[in-house]
């Protein structure tokens, strides 16, 4: 565009006083227009991306999901009568165990129907978040890494540290086995498997394998997840109506 300044100027001259919104949009968004939805959505969408940030704030170049953002949102979803269901979209590498478990517990205790969808990856502490929903989906190409929990940073080298870590892991295992079809034995087998990950123990389950092991309920994408969520919302409504009578 710069090698033809004359033509360029001529084109842009009339728009100078009022900057071209179209050009601006392309520059800023990489697209010209945003699609519009007609009515208020009764389904809200919670996206869990990047790292799950714990008590330590990560530098801004990291893409993180902060639990202090998600928890009030989940509370708002629970309280708002207009919201009938939640779709949780996961593409996370994992992160803080306590923050991840906090989000999982919030989702599991939500009275409204919830459906989770793992796209790309739902690793590490993403596993309990994925299974915490009423129904879980995984994309065919998505993966989930199941591995033992570990600490980073400075650790006090005493036996109690190991015991604490062991208990923390037990909490994750209990949560996952309680909220999915997988047995404790099988989950621990996957967690401590050798030879699957480079220089690490654990397993990387891909799409259909996660379903076969009972961890996830089905393989699918956003279409399947929405259909299931609408189904669950209808069931939930029927149940509530029954209670009134």
């Amino acid at each position, binding site marked *: 565009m710069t090698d033809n300044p004359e033509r360029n100027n001529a084109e842009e001259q009339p728009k100078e006083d009022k900057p071209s919104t179209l050009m601006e*949009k392309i520059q*800023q*968004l*990489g697209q010209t*227009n*945003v*699609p*519009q*939805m007609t009515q*208020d*959505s009764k*389904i*809200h*969408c*919670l996206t869990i991306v990047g790292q799950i940030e714990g008590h*330590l*704030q*990560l*530098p*801004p*170049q990291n893409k993180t999901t902060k639990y202090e*953002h998600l928890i009030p*949102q989940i509370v*708002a*979803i629970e309280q708002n009568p207009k919201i009938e269901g*939640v779709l949780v979209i996961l593409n996370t590498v994992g992160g803080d165990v306590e923050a991840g478990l906090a989000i999982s517990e919030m989702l599991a205790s939500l009275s409204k129907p919830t459906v989770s969808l793992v796209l790309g990856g739902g690793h590490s502490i993403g596993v309990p978040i994925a299974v915490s929903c009423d129904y879980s989906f995984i994309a065919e190409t998505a993966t989930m890494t199941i591995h033992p929990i570990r600490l*980073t*940073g*400075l650790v006090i080298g005493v036996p109690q540290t190991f015991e604490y870590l062991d208990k923390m892991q037990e909490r994750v295992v209990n949560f996952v086995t309680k909220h999915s079809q997988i047995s404790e034995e099988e989950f621990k087998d996957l967690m401590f498997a050798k030879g699957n990950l480079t220089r690490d123990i654990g397993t990387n389950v891909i799409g259909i394998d996660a379903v076969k092991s009972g961890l996830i309920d089905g393989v699918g994408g956003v279409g399947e997840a929405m259909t299931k969520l609408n189904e669950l919302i209808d069931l939930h409504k029927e149940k509530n109506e029954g209670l009134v009578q």
Partner: protein
Amino acid sequence: MIMYTMMPEELIFPIQQDTYEKQQIIQYNGIPLLVEKNELHQYEVIRILSTDPNHYLHAPIQPGTKLNVNESLFS
């Protein structure tokens, strides 16, 4: 130089405080947004922190747009 360590990177190379201060969360017409201040004192939208899918379709707050907001909006 290659450094082999089990310590987290942030511990060895501390992040400067002002990098944290560049990004802020504001409420724009009730929609929580993560914004970053640029040199022209404009705020560029980085991320929308809402669960309502409709908020993501609002053209004026699409990630990448620059907002001219006054400081009173900051919570």
